[in-house]
């Protein structure tokens, strides 16, 4: 017995040692060669799915953009719309009924992988999928509600030409209509279940056909896991095809041997530059780990590097020999939101005073490591056409803030060091509950700085960290006094309705309660103004309005922090997310 248990322990012990040794030996043998042309891109987490209609995460969108293409795309270099599947940008006419007609023609070269041509019918099928009730794209459906009908061309017959009939005039109609990732019916609806329904039916009487068994069967299949992540069910007209997805680890897509886009002669643009034979999206959750992996040569492209790490990359020899850092400005801005409908903030002088208490330049220097640009409004300084350069940002000026507060009636009447004012018959101290999402240290630092400056003029700021979903909930229900937020833009024309229109107070994103009839009218007219010059002038007026009213204290437009391996000598970075076009990278022989 003793011998047995003793031996068991000994055997187990040596087994453990042996297995560790094995692991070490293994470690020496598993370095392998890779094709220098391959690009390995870092992602912080897996995308939610690779279904081009139902996906929600931004990372999914970037990956899908190499496998699926739409009629139009936004050129990374110019931020202008350029044709991909379409021959050229569409012809847009206003109709007498107050709507629009958008006419496209698909390129003659365009074919699916099996050689069949891409036609107007494919676009129609895609639109039907988007509009199909029960398909899990509730967020996406409203973008296409404006298209009521499609017209085809029988005489003379042209299967590649079609027209969208829209009910309203809207500045985002062109980009929305051109943005849909065209799907092949053979793959997504092999039984032709949607064949019986028309676009008009799906638009106007969606609620009546919801329970139709064909709709139910199609939606169930389309929403299922196989169309999210299985080979054979992920295929589009783009230059790359799906290879594999190892959950939580990586997604691999590879260049098609024969892609129709290579034969295109006219109107080529960045979407036709696809040199990398393989693109690998490597998921590494932790930033620090990812940086080490970058230096070790396990990844070639990393974006979203933290500012602090980014400025310290200079110290690493390994990084400097192999990588180039880039910091293009991003299409986003951060702001401090003020609940303008609270009595204490209803006077715009108070809000202006608060704006004078934020030392934005110091924040950029000390907290954001210089990796941000100041902005005066929701339109970013990089948008040369529409950014209002006549407005100079609010200066950091405690004296001026004090003066404005006094004018607004805030005085320290009881001598307790905090400003007060009679509101609704009660003497109220000037306190501000300032919330941010817990765990965001940069925001916390900014608010602490503000707290200190506010204290000097007699405002007491309570810093409140809130769990993310509660933080969002409170904004939506207007249960906040001030909060630190940010918005991400797309390169499309600015529509301010969602954020600044009074109609968006209940249910929209006008959390701060900004707005008056004239701002609403301006927002509404910007939405339908198709002339770019006139729209720019109106946008400038809108910025001046926000500047005066200060519903937000506009802070900064951050810079993206990107590292790209030096062997890709033609790499460029752009403002548009994700900031690079990795499939266009060419590896030079030298590395």
């Amino acid at each position, binding site marked *: 017995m*003793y011998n047995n248990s*003793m031996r068991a*322990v000994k055997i187990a012990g040596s087994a*453990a040692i042996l*297995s560790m040794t*094995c*692991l070490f030996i*293994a*470690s020496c*043998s*598993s370095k392998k060669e890779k094709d220098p042309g391959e690009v390995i891109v870092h992602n912080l987490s*897996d995308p*939610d*799915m690779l279904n081009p209609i139902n996906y*929600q995460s931004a990372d999914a969108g970037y990956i899908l953009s190499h496998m699926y293409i739409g009629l139009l795309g936004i050129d990374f270099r110019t931020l202008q719309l350029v044709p991909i599947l379409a021959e050229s940008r569409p012809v847009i006419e206003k109709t007498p009924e107050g709507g629009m007609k958008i006419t496209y023609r698909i390129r003659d070269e365009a074919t699916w992988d099996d050689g069949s041509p891409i036609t107007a019918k494919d676009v129609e099928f895609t639109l039907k999928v988007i509009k199909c009730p029960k398909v*899990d794209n*509730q967020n*996406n459906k*409203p973008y296409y*509600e*404006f298209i009521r009908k499609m017209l085809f061309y029988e005489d003379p017959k042209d299967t590649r030409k079609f027209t969208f009939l829209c009910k*309203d005039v809207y500045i*985002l109609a062109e980009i*929305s209509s051109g943005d849909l990732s065209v799907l092949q019916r053979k793959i997504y609806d092999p039984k032709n279940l949607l064949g019986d329904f028309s676009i008009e039916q799906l638009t106007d009487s969606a609620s009546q056909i919801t329970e139709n068994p064909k709709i139910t069967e199609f939606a169930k299949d389309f*929403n299922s*896991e196989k169309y*999210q*992540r299985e080979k054979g069910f992920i295929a589009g007209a783009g230059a790359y095809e799906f290879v*594999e997805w190892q*959950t*939580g*680890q*990586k997604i691999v897509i590879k260049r098609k041997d024969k892609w129709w886009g290579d034969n295109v002669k006219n109107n080529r643009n960045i979407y036709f530059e696809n040199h990398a034979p393989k693109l690998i999206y490597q*998921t*590494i*959750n*932790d930033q620090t*780990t990812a940086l080490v*992996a970058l*230096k*070790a040569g*396990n990844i070639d492209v990393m974006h979203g590097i933290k500012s602090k790490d980014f400025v310290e990359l200079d110290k690493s*020899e390994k990084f400097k020999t192999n990588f180039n850092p880039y910091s293009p400005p991003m299409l986003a801005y951060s702001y401090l939101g003020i609940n303008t409908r609270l009595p204490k903030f209803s006077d715009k002088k108070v809000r202006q005073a608060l704006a004078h208490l934020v030392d934005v330049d110091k924040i950029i220097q000390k907290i954001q490591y210089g990796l941000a640009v100041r902005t005066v409004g929701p339109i970013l300084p990089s948008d040369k056409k529409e950014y209002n350069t006549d407005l100079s940002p609010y200066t950091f000026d405690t004296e001026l803030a004090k003066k404005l507060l006094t004018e607004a009636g805030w005085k320290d009447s009881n001598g307790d060091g905090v400003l007060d004012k009679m509101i609704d018959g009660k003497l109220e101290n000037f306190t501000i509950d300032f919330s941010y999402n817990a765990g965001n240290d940069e925001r916390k630092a900014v608010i602490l700085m503000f707290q200190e400056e506010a204290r000097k003029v007699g405002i007491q700021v309570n810093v409140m960290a809130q769990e993310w*979903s*509660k933080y*969002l*909930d409170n904004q939506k229900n207007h249960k906040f006094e001030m909060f630190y937020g940010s918005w991400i833009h797309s390169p499309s024309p600015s*529509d301010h*309705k*969602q954020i600044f229109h*009074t*109609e*968006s*107070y*209940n*249910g*929209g994103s006008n959390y701060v309660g900004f707005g*008056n*009839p004239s701002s*609403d009218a301006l927002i509404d007219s910007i939405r339908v103004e198709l002339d770019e010059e006139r729209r720019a002038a109106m946008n400038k007026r809108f910025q001046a309005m926000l500047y005066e009213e200060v519903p937000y204290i506009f802070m900064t437009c951050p810079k993206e922090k990107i590292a790209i391996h030096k062997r890709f000598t033609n790499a460029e970075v752009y403002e548009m997310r994700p900031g690079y076009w990795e499939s266009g990278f060419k590896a030079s022989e030298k590395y």
Partner: protein
Amino acid sequence: MLKYILKRVLIFVPTLFAISLLTFIISLNAPGDPVDMMLNQSNSGQGQSAQKLATEKAYISLKHKLGLDLPIFYFSFSNASLPDTMYRIVKAQHRYALERMCDEYGNWESISAYYLTVRNLDMSLYSVPKDSSIALDLQRSKDFAASLLETYDQLKTNVILSNLEYIFSNTPAFASLNVYLQAARSSYEEIQKNKSSYRKYIPRLQFYGFNNQYHNWIVNFIHGDFGISYQDKRPVASVIWDAVRWTMLISSLSILLSYIVSIPVGVKSAVKKGTRSDRVTTTGLFMLYSMPPFWIATMLIMFFCGGDYFDWFPAFGLGTLPDDAPLMQRLTDTSYHLILPLFCWTYTSFAFLSRQMRGGVLNVIGQDYIRTARAKGVPEKQVVWRHAFRNSLLPIITMFANIFPLVISGSFIIEWIFSIPGMGKITLEALIARNYPIVFTEMMFAAILTLIGTLVADILYAAVDPRISFSGKSV
């Protein structure tokens, strides 16, 4: 013994039921609405005039699709003023206001009539054609109507109603809507008139039958259908299976390793108590124990994974070979990737386990029968491993009970830092996103495994220590 095991297994059923109920109730009361979360992952800016209707429609249809519009449980226990159909009001704020009104006035019939009139009023405002001359009034009215739906205070309601009446009387464009406003006003007065607040003192038990959220969930669970993950819309079983494979692999290896190392170390240091080697191992193990794994993990990665220092180990993941690579090659590749995470996962348990072992042996080794054995001339090794070791295993077995849930729960920190797609990561992400199907399923499995663990530990007690017996008579 068999009878005992059977009895224990039977007790599992009510225990699991209680746990499932508790999980369910707690999660439903947590702040945050999963439907809101799903709809707002990306906020579209496209709403046209029908925007309000559309988003409410999307909310209701999604809620219906997920079955979240059903009553929560088989029955509810409340007072007689509350209607049995309150769960049908989907918006939480509206429901809260109505409940408060029921508490105050007790006459649900009039209250619901009032609610409907206010909703009609709210909707009717959205049909008014937009025109800059009335824009401000329209907007104010909309805000008032919306806040009316969330107000239960009498004074506030009256103020809002009179404000609306003031606006309506001064705006000819709203003339056609006056009927809605009057209806709201008169139905509100109706509530005051028919006040029957005594009803809230009458308790009432309300039965909902089998079509409720809890029933649907538990029945599906028993049938092995765990639902669809809210975040990525994949079946929960598939999500969990993808993750649990890795977690099980790593945690079983880690448990094995920690026992293999800790037991001999613990026994050794007990036997050599007070010597220099005992002190050195104790100090060493406690130093390891006190270093947080997230820090060690980051340090190891920074120094040994090809950053600016040594390139000995991979920094992340589980190996990059495709599924069709030879098994042996995949095995070595995976093990190579596992070395660092496994170490970080395991080292803290060395100190704890070996201290437990050491304590157990020390307890036993001073006892009479050990002295007797020594006096008989039994060799020291045999004394330790045969006589002392077996009897000192009890504390280790107690801890063994926790191993089962540990095997699937994973470690969020280690998984996060080394990018291992395991259970810890999934659990935390699901909790943050209010992804109930995943949270429920994991809780249930953890509960089942804990129960099994304690049962196994009890059986092991009997196996190790003859003095412990479950058959009722002494051996």
